[in-house]
């Protein structure tokens, strides 16, 4: 069964692309969850839906259209979250639902089918081509390099922003970098995972790891491992039971979360 599973080139592509994207999402997710920015991932996926619908309607390549739009919204959402005078979560909700509506309207006006909408919503393991493999490999190299080289700064900024600011660290540059990398991760990842489910691969691994691990370093490493393992398991489930990939990966993540949550009970 496993041989048959791996004999399809599209599955191998999906596993390579998706595995790399999940790795990136999990690393970024640790900072996003701890900085209380989880909703940004969710907001970005909806903006991504609107942007990809637009690209589809214009018959343009998806990445060049969607990536800049989502990146711009990432900065906007970040600013909204930092600004306490505006209700950040409400603003994110308005932006994401508007983007969703925009995407649906564009798709139906341009003669797109419900199948188009559905594949964007729920993702498809057939979506990845060769170029996507290269792009996700590049993204993974960049994200991992940033995490290794700037690990200590990321920790300081995530743990206590005002202390880091007072010490002279350029906090807003780091936030922008994280937002930008998240935007690209979301745009590439949402075609496998789908709009509705992409934010789960950002949020789940970090939360799962935090159930068991208590040091920042171990949470980061565990998130990356959990994320990739859950993704591969999820794709396998998707193949065997013929269910949408995104939903299967979320189910695998939920299972991991449940398993990790059991640990405190066992230890006690």
């Amino acid at each position: 069964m496993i041989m048959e599973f791996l004999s399809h080139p599209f599955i191998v592509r999906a596993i390579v692309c998706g595995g790399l994207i999940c790795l990136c999402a999990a690393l970024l997710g640790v900072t996003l969850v701890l900085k209380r920015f989880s909703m940004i991932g969710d907001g970005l996926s909806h903006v991504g839906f609107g942007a990809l619908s637009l690209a589809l309607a214009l018959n343009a390549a998806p990445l060049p259209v969607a990536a800049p739009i989502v990146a711009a919204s990432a900065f906007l959402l970040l600013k909204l979250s930092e600004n306490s005078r505006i209700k950040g979560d409400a603003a994110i909700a308005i932006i994401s639902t508007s983007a969703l509506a925009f995407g649906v309207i564009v798709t139906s006006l341009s003669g797109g089918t419900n199948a188009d909408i559905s594949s964007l919503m729920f993702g498809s393991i057939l979506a990845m081509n060769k170029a996507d493999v290269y792009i996700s490999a590049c993204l993974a190299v960049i994200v991992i390099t940033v995490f290794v080289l700037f690990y200590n700064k990321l920790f300081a900024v995530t743990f206590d922003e005002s202390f880091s600011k007072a010490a002279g660290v350029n906090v807003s540059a780091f936030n922008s970098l994280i937002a930008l990398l998240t935007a690209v991760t979301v745009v590439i990842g949402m075609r496998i995972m789908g709009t509705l489910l992409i934010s789960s691969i950002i949020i789940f691994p970090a939360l799962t790891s935090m159930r068991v691990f208590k040091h920042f370093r171990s949470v980061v490493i565990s998130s990356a491992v959990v994320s990739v393992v859950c993704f591969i398991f999820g794709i396998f489930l998707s193949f065997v039971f013929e269910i949408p990939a995104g939903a299967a990966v979320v189910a695998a993540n939920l299972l991991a979360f449940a398993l990790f949550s059991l640990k405190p009970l066992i230890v006690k």
Partner: protein
Amino acid sequence: MLKCKDVSIKYENFCAVHDISFEVRDCECLYIVGENGSGKTSLLKAILGLIHVSEGEIVFDKKTDIGYLSQNGGVKNDFPASAFEVVLSGQVKKTKFFYSKEQKNKALQKMREMGVFEARNKCFRELSGGQRQRVLLARALSATDSLLILDEPLTGLDFAAAEELYKTLAQLKDMTIIIVSHDINGALKYADKMLYLGMGDSFFGTPDEFIKSGKLSSFGGGAK
């Protein structure tokens, strides 16, 4: 160390800090006291350079590294981090990519001085309030060897833990320390200088001068 001249801080429609002047000399301990909303935190943020002053100026006599402890430790309760990781992050500005052996030793040394060496591998969120403040203090001390700025460091501590913290701070004789505090008794006992911020009213001087000024009564007789 630091001079504040006629400083005012205004937000869009109100004035948080109005025309404050004071001076902190090297190795002095300044307590900033006042009611909620009197602008203590705004003034602190201006000293840290996190916000701009609207009028006047804040001048340091030389470039100074600041060790800062924010209100409630500025910390989220579910954060997974060991006490050592937290203290190490105090030196984040002085390192390019990775912490050196010396920096790690310095962090451990500061933890010893603050009495939290034993807790170094424990999870930060599982420490007691007093231990957390000591860990954060160790972090602040590894960021600077001259100026500590502490915003309400006693919040959430019981009487004994607060008393311990006061004693620890009093032992840091080579440090210039600026503390924002609600605890007027502690301020009167441990401050070299006091800055009182009231509504449209302020005072700067020694604790003795503060008692003589009669402004103590505006604290509702809380002091003995």
